[in-house]
């Protein structure tokens, strides 16, 4: 007898496992999209599903995002639980009419008679050297649409837990997969019992006392790195991983900022009209008397996603985060 060594798993593997477990547990779960079958998805997240569950349960569709999501609506109307893959962030835009005019409001327009339990997986964000239309951070569009849940994991365990919760949800969930974290590894044993994380709860990834970094998805590891680097400056930064943008966990965020008195919101998508503005406003409304400095944002620039050779200048990095934290200190000292 040999004991099986606990292997680190990647986020992509955890997502695959979540899909597989969901399909095994519930025959109404169907995976569909371009290239999800034989190829196993361009990121291999659906690898092996068509072989294990058949092409009727893991279906290669024609290349048409509105058609993929629109037919998934009809399938959900008939009692299935479709899990749709959009392949890349900017490829999802043709499906926006279906998303906004039907997916998000079917429950509402039928007064609750016809909920749509479907999950829309969208690999999003930059940092992988993708060419144009392969690196957008589109979360603000989804957040602005009532009726959708918007979820984004940053760890291997959350990728599994949140995807299972999304598929189990009776409401549509936009499941944003930070594609530059697909290959990030964690000591997660896929054969252990796996926890399903409820949608809507933020988590403190790193406790600290000097200031709170509020972030999600691809920026979580960057913020954790920044927090480590900040120790040399004598700053003890707390990092809050939102995990869910809709619903928003005001309680966890406000409790953290009340402890630290300072906050920086960090995300890749543009700052103007971006998630950070909403988050900063919510923090200000709830924590004004606890704040030692204005809530700052470290976001991508307000530009179309840049070509890959310039993306490092666009993406919020450790230095830009530390610079913001330094400005918080300055505000406090003067």
């Amino acid at each position, binding site marked *: 007898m040999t004991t099986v060594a606990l292997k680190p798993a990647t986020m992509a593997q955890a997502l695959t496992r979540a899909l597989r477990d969901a399909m095994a547990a519930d025959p109404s779960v*169907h995976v569909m999209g371009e290239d999800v079958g034989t190829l196993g998805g361009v990121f291999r997240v659906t690898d092996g599903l068509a072989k294990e569950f058949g092409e*009727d349960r893991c279906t290669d*569709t*024609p290349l*048409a995002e*509105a*058609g993929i*999501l*629109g*037919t*998934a*609506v*009809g*399938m*959900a*109307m*008939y*009692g*299935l639980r*479709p899990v749709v893959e959009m392949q890349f962030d900017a490829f999802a835009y*043709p499906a926006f*009419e*279906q998303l906004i*005019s*039907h997916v998000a*409001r*079917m*429950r*509402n*327009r*039928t*007064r*609750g*008679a*016809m*909920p749509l339990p479907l999950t829309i997986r969208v690999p999003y964000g930059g940092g992988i050297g993708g060419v144009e239309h392969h690196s957008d951070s589109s979360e603000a569009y989804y957040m602005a649409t*009532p*009726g959708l*849940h918007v979820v984004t994991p940053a760890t291997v365990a959350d990728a599994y837990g949140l995807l299972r919760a999304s598929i189990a*949800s*009776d*409401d549509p969930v936009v499941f944003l997969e930070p594609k530059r974290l697909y290959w990030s590894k964690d000591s997660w044993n896929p054969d252990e019992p796996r926890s399903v994380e409820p949608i*809507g709860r933020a988590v403190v990834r790193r406790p600290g006392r000097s200031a709170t970094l509020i972030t999600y998805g691809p920026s979580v590891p960057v913020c954790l790195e920044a927090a480590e680097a900040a120790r040399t400056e004598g700053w003890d930064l707390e990092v809050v991983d939102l995990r869910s943008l*809709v*619903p*928003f*966990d*005001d*309680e966890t965020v406000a409790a953290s900022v009340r402890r630290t008195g300072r906050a920086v919101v960090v995300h890749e998508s543009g700052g103007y009209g971006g998630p950070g503005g909403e988050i900063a406003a919510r923090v200000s409304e709830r924590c004004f008397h606890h704040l030692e400095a204005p809530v700052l944002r470290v976001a991508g620039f307000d530009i179309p996603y840049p070509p890959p050779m310039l993306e490092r200048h666009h993406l919020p990095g450790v230095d830009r985060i530390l610079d913001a934290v330094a400005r918080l200190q300055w505000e406090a000292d003067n």
Partner: protein
Amino acid sequence: MTVMEQRGAYRPTPPPAWQPRTDPAPLLPDALPHRVLGTGTAARVDPDLLRRLYTELVRGRRYNTQATALTKQGRLAVYPSSTGQEACEVAAALVLEERDWLFPSYRDTLAAVARGLDPVQALTLLRGDWHTGYDPRELRIAPLCTPLATQLPHAVGLAHAARLKGDDVVALALVGDGGTSEGDFHEALNFAAVWQAPVVFLVQNNGFAISVPLDKQTAAPSLAHKAVGYGMPGRLVDGNDAAAVHEVLSDAVRHARAGGGPTLVEAVTYRIEAHTNADDATRYRGDSEVETWRAHDPIVLLEKELTERGLLDEEGILAAREAAETMAADLRARMNQDPVLDPMDLFAHVYAEPTPQLREQEARLRAELAAEADTDTAAGFEPEGGGR
């Protein structure tokens, strides 16, 4: 080998071996719309079906005039009348079995009513008290769809799901001529053909997309021709001939139920009224055109057939009209009552569980309503009907 037999064998191969497919004939629609009334074919049609179609046409026309009147009285925000197109609406409803699904657009209230939907519930969208006044699963009628052609992929997905579950359910989706220019029309037809989904698309070509005529909408010989490129049959039918529409749709539904895949049916008809009460049709079409189509009225055509063959007499005509009047009177009476609305419903059906943010907003509205009620009481006003 026909095109349908070639299906699935197609792979692009390099020239010179590559040969274009040469025999599209089985998929092409007839050059002229299929007709039944006034032809020898009419004798084949079950007289009971013809009488049933007649009763529904008369009731449908009355529904259209009543709903239009309710618009003028301010009871409906808007009503897109289907006067002139009733044969399509009624046939669409009557070809379906109970287990089948109808996917109507905003002009298709009549199809929903002919399928059995409460006439008042069919109008909640247009009255403005709620978007969809019914449970779509009860009668298997999807919500009346306002964006153009977006309900077509839903019909495909539902039909596909039914087949995956082993149910012999057919979905029939209604769309207008303008809707055929939308991307969702293309994607829906393509998915349906690739999946061989049991779905029937009925295009009601009524001549205009609001003001834009068909020749500015498409360069195709007919809208039914569009089927060929997807690999499904296209059928062209006289949309004012209720028996013909019923026959063609029945064929298509039977074909779909038997596993034969989708069909695109184009019904050539005409919108006698303006697009809605907000539209001025005289800006884009002449009276003589409308009069020509009035002479080809679906009710007149069917009444002529039935009376000439001795299947309908004055008494029968009066009975149909009386039934229609009864429906109209009931509709009028019920639509003249103010709907009772609960403002808290605003938050009830956004998510299965309201988000914390919605709960906060819900509490705010509740407090506002309580304050309003207090003010009304203090000022000696009775709160208006319903509402609180």
